[in-house]
């Protein structure tokens, strides 16, 4: 069975997440929850001179939510805020089924809109990142 969602990239990041851990005294932080699934992602960022100097996460939940968070941190680290927001927009569009051409490991989620019940797992970390950056509401929920 070819399962487009559980590719090696996703499984690898789930097993061995990158940039996992808390950044103490970071400049931006938010927490995201999927109340129905129990998925949880907390994002910590150090933003300096409009650059994502550091980004880490902690969390628990399904493979999709945790791999998405891990891949997100690797994609955003070192990016300018404009670039990071562009990536966020691209991911959200991709998740809603709009055709995008994602680069790098984010492409593992190119087919996510084919799994409607799992979209919220994949976007949880990105929405948490967005909330952290905008610092409007530090606890978000995808429900």
């Amino acid at each position, binding site marked *: *069975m070819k*399962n487009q*969602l*559980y590719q090696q990239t996703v*499984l690898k990041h789930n097993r061995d997440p990158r940039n996992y851990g808390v950044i103490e005294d970071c400049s931006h932080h938010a927490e995201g929850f999927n109340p*129905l*699934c*129990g998925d949880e992602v907390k994002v910590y960022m150090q933003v300096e001179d409009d650059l994502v100097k550091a980004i880490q996460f902690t969390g*628990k*939940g*399904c*493979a*999709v939510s945790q791999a998405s968070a891990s891949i997100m941190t690797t994609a955003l680290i070192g990016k300018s805020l404009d670039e990071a927001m562009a990536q966020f927009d691209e991911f959200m569009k991709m998740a809603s089924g709009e055709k995008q051409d994602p680069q790098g490991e984010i492409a593992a989620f190119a087919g996510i809109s084919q*799994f409607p*019940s*799992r979209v919220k*797992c994949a976007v949880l970390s990105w929405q948490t990142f967005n909330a952290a950056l905008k610092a409007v509401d530090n606890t978000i929920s995808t429900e």
Partner: protein
Amino acid sequence: MLDIEKIRADFPILERQVHKKTLAYLDNGATTLKPNQVVGEIEKHYKEECSNIHRGIHWLSERATEAYEASREKVQKLINAESTDNIVFTSGTTAGINLVVQSYGRSELNAGDEVIISAMEHHSNIVPWQMLREEKGIVIKVVPVLEDGSLDMESFYNLISEKTKFISIMYVSNVLGTINPMQEICDKANELGVPVLVDAAQAIAHMPVDVQKLNCTFMVFSAHKMYGPTGVGVLYGKAEYLEKMPPVNGGGDMILSVSFDKTVYNVAPYKFEAGTPNIAGVIGLGAAVDYLQSFNWQEVEAREEELIAYAHEKLEKIPGLKIIGTAKNKSGAVSFTMKDIHPHDIGTIVDRSGVAIRTGHHCAQPLMESFGIVATARASFAIYNTKEEVDQLAKALEKVQEIFA
């Protein structure tokens, strides 16, 4: 003997392909599929007898009223209630529990009074009591669950005191499949002289239920978990309770007379059925009762026991799979975890093999907590399920293991 081929033919949805695979519907604890006999009766109401009930004097209204009240009689017979006056139609199990809490609980329970529930309850038998606790200061006492998923009856007896004023417990666990010793619980409640509510949502389609034998005060269940439509359910109540309980919803059909000075309420069950009810749903429920009654209970129970035993046998062979809920008396559901693979990932992968199971906390978060887990995957069975479908599940679970190896 049950003719499974013939039964399956009553459920055309079973012929569906899902992700180009034959559907194996193992999510009956969430809702059962609906046979042609039920769908047909609902359609007949809308196509041939559509009308409001209890007020029209025209021919169609009489037909609809007759069909609606005939369902009350069918339900009465199904659960062996004393009379049709004991049968209140609701929108489902949740609504039934809320009605009892908001009517009986609000008017009869006071600060410090204790309500006994269990750790395996569905949120629908937890949250309404918590709402009453907020309002009246009642105390909720929780019977713990033992490791095998059975109720800790020793604790049940220890929790009972002169402060106990209500007992509300599920008959069969939607997660663990445990059949609770309901007769014993009801006997104790009656000995104490306190009302007892039996949540029969997961029992009603799987075993004969007799409210007079149980001698319960209240029983609630939903049509949609017994081959009937969604949005309709039943509250059974003993006459002396229903008569005294105040209505919760005011409106049409629940009154005898209305003036701006004084309104006289109708009698039970009508005083609890304000507004136009789910007429087609109630008629569909009646058809579902007929459908259930067309089988022999012993054969239904034997068949479902065999399926559960087979599921246990097949699933236990899968390395790393752990069945949650191994009580001696089980019905309906087999819950499991697979090491650190999240149940939602299990659910998505087996779905791609055409297998529909439920994953998550099953509206029983406190129960998940008591087992130290966040979620389970659950296969739940109905009369039309087959061993081949269990095999299909087991094969799909092997795929899950391959992917996460």
